[in-house]
């Protein structure tokens, strides 16, 4: 096995549900601090790929590496569970539907995992929560329950919750798709701030403008393969593949 130099590396990722191949031999590497957007039509496998990175959807073949450690190691079940829980602490994930814990306050949403998994005291965890919530502009709502927040606010709390584990990598699975249009910007703003702080991010998105403005690289996926990848100015302005052009054309028409 060769030495891993890339920060995140996906090698020959393959996933099938019975006959259906969702991911067909996908390889991708991401440098530290890089921001990669994955775009493509629904059913293209982009979410599945993202969810394979932290093993939420297990691959049927291929390897995922993060910072020199293989994420989807071959281990006996019990050892694998321990290993994957440790790996997931280093990989933050933000979901389309926020998935905040509704029975906990904003503060408790953020402090739970650091207290449980990193042994932080209540005071330390509270200080951490205040810092992270301040970072996403949600400090004033620290003692609210998720049901008392707007969608955009929920998503900002979800980002703070993920950041509180001090992840090396952040995954965003259509983080703004479920939001009302006027709330999208506040979440994008937070993601831009993270980009400026050189957080390594992989973003599945439908927002081409945001991808163009923030990302270093864009992958266009369709039917389980990466059709085309490159810097946003190439993918969005002069894509080489017909399928990419068609997708972008439809997308722009859809947006109008």
């Amino acid at each position, binding site marked *: 096995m060769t030495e891993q130099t890339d920060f995140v590396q996906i090698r020959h990722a393959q996933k099938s549900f019975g006959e259906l191949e969702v991911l067909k031999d996908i390889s991708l590497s991401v440098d530290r601090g890089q921001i990669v957007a994955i775009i493509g039509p629904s059913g293209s496998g982009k979410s599945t790929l993202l969810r394979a990175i*932290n093993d*939420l959807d297990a691959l049927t073949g291929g390897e995922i590496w993060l910072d020199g450690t293989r994420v989807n190691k071959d281990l006996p079940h019990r050892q694998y*569970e321990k290993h994957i*829980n*440790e790996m*997931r*602490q280093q*990989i*933050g*994930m933000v*979901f389309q*539907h926020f*998935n*905040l*814990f*509704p*029975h*906990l*306050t904003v503060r408790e949403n953020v402090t*739970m*995992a650091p207290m*449980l*998994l990193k042994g932080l005291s209540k005071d330390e965890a509270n200080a951490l929560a205040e810092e992270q919530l301040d970072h996403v502009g949600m400090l004033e709502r620290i003692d609210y*329950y998720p*049901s008392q927040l707007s969608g955009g606010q929920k998503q900002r709390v*979800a980002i703070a*919750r*993920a950041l509180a*584990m001090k992840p090396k990598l952040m995954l965003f699975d259509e983080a703004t798709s479920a939001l009302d249009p006027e709330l999208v910007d506040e979440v994008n703003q937070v993601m831009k701030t993270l980009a400026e702080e050189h957080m390594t991010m992989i973003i599945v998105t439908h927002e081409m403008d945001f991808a163009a403005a923030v990302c270093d690289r864009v992958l266009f996926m369709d039917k389980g393969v990466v059709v085309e990848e490159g810097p946003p100015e190439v993918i969005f302005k002069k894509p080489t593949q017909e399928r990419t052009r068609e997708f972008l054309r439809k997308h722009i028409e859809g947006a109008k």
Partner: protein
Amino acid sequence: MGLDFSIIPKYMDVILLGCAWTIGITVAAALLSFVGGIIFAVIALYAPWIVRQPFRLIEWLFMGTPLLLQLFLIYFGLVQIGIDLPAFVAGIIGLGLHFAVYNSELIQTAILAVDKGQMEAARTLGLSRAQALRKVVIPQAVRAVIPPIGNNMIALLKDSALVSVIGVSELTLSAQRVIGKTYRPFEFYMLAAACYYVINLCMEWVQRKIERRISISR
């Protein structure tokens, strides 16, 4: 012989003591049924086959046979294998496990109804499945089943009268004993009924308070 309620104050202490036993047994059995219900539910949903099977037998035993028989079995039957429980303990265990099985059914449904994104979000943060269940899924499931579990607990209160047959001087047996002395069944059964009603109202009040507290977080 007409009705004469003026006799009641003389025996009120016996009846109140009976109430205290009824309340004590009901509260203890309710707690057991609640905690037991969560444990049974988790076993039914997540335990390996080899653990699940014996529990299915227990479940069948408690759901498919009369509570009265279960109480006899626990109080009289277990003595033969060297487990000699005080009557009130046998009563609490019998009532508690009987209703734990019913609560377990409710909690299982509620656990399955918790959005799967909750488990995913917890696992993504690095929690193990057990931690995610304990901290995220079960607390939400339990909140959802408080109203139907409250109904079970009212049934439990009423069924607590059955422990009188193994000799626990709870409300019903206390009333019977007083009637044995006074030959006034109507007065004292009515009094016992009134006591059950009041205890019932208190339980509903507690249930409403719990529901109101948890509704804020939804």
